[in-house]
């Protein structure tokens, strides 16, 4: 082709949806729906103004946190929450290992896989609050119900991520171990565990701080811990005590975050 024959050939990235009618239809439809949806929100402005002033009182209370008046309740709540968090994380993570192994399609036979995936699905289908309500109904108020809730929720979370991690391993390393005549357990121990261990540890630490935050939430439905203390404080309009509790939760979450990021780096 000589230079004179060369045409200017325009290029544009091909659109995700080829049909222009469908494409523009979806864009416009989406916009119309958004406008309509916002229009249906019925905002009571006088109530909003009232809420703002109430919020201000709230804020005033929070600016002067009171750690002392109800320190006994706060410490008991914290202790319950931390105990619940640590025990539930340990138990949940330990139980999630066999379930995660069973839920990895590349190493588990189909029936085992189906059962383990079902356990994970059930655990993940229920939000912690719903689980807490169920366990409180079964075992009564208090941290034991909270412990069960968090353990069960941890299983769903950890086992799913562990299984997915196992499915994503470098198969060649596991194959090489299998080729030495290793048993299934040895293949798991030598070919798979080293590959998933850093993430498993990282996720356990991450789950530890999720569980701590959740322990504050599930206390509200009666599963014990700092959440129960917080709930009581709010109901009594003890905003200064509530503020003290929130500050402690924030500090503990930040501390856990800091420690776990260091631990993770060290494990890697």
């Amino acid at each position, binding site marked *: 082709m000589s230079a004179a024959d060369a045409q200017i050939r325009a290029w544009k990235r091909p659109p995700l949806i080829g049909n222009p009618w469908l494409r523009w239809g979806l864009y416009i439809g989406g916009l119309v729906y958004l406008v309509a949806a916002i229009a249906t929100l019925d905002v009571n402005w006088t109530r909003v103004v009232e809420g703002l002033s109430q919020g201000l009182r709230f804020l005033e209370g929070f600016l002067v946190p009171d750690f002392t008046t109800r320190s006994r309740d706060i410490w008991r709540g914290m202790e319950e929450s931390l105990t619940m968090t640590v025990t539930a994380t340990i138990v949940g993570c330990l139980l999630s290992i066999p379930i995660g192994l069973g839920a990895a399609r590349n190493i588990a036979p189909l029936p085992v896989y189906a059962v383990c995936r079902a356990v994970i699905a059930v655990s993940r289908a229920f939000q912690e609050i719903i689980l807490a309500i169920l366990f409180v109904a079964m075992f009564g108020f208090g941290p034991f119900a909270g412990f069960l809730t968090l353990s069960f929720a941890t299983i769903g979370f950890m086992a799913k991520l562990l299984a997915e991690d196992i499915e994503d391993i*470098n198969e*060649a*390393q596991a*194959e*090489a*171990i*299998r*080729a*030495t*005549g*290793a*048993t299934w*357990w*040895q293949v798991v*121990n*030598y*070919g798979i565990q*080293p*590959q998933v*261990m*850093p993430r498993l540890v990282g996720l356990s630490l991450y789950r530890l701080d999720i569980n701590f935050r959740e322990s504050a939430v599930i206390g509200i439905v009666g599963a014990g811990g700092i959440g129960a203390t917080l709930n009581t404080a709010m109901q009594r309009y003890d905003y200064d005590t509530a503020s003290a509790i929130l500050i402690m939760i924030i500090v503990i979450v930040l501390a856990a975050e800091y420690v776990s990021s260091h631990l993770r780096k060290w494990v890697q």
Partner: protein
Amino acid sequence: MRAMLRVSSLSKRYKTGDEALNGVSFDVPAGQVVGLIGPSGSGKSTLIRCINRLVKPTSGHVSLNETDIMRLGRGALRRARRRMGMIFQEYALVERLTVMENVLSGRLGYVSFWRSFFRRFPQGDVDKAFMLLDRVGLTEQADKRASALSGGQRQRVGIARALEQDPQLLLVDEPTASLDPKTARQIMRLICEICRERNLPAIVSLHDVVLAKMFVDRIIGLRAGVIVFDGAPSGLNTAMLTEIYGEEDWTQIHDGTDDEPTQDAALDTHAREERMAGLT
């Protein structure tokens, strides 16, 4: 010589319908290093994996020292696998384990789960592992993670792991695929030396025809799952390379061996021994 490995009419069809191997038969006597060449997708990896049943063949037989590998149950298959050392493309070391753990993993077929779990291998296994690390020149690196080594070093660990099994056969899948030309030659030389020392038969799949001709005793050429060449490296001429890989300019590869039809096999062997000794 007695055939140690006998492969007869081996076929493999994958679930996708791809016919990876179609009636492959050959024998390998003790101490022979066989180079397996062929284009990508010709079934080299499948053939190697069918021998230790990492891939289950559709039909055919494989026997090692009169043991029919195809009929074995799970436990017996594991015991057969530990007699077949395997060396992989891209090394396939467990990256996060130490060099020593990688080498000792060659003993997994011999020790109980708990022993291997607590890394309490019998002293004999540890001695052997140190001896092998000495042999491949990595004694200093024993406690480093495999991921900290260079490509050539990793493949040496791969070789040590395979030998730790006390194998009766080496299966080697593209050992030099990701190595530079010099390291590739060193690794091939090491593999071939070890096979000579121990009178080990080996099947080595290779992309690099020049490398194959330099080091192996015999070449099997695969195309689309069928053996189209089986003979001495010197017999691999332009016509045969075209048969295996298709039309291309092959004159550089076979060094004009076609022009010397009188070249005798002894000379060929001699030249190869010289290369093995690292003289060229």
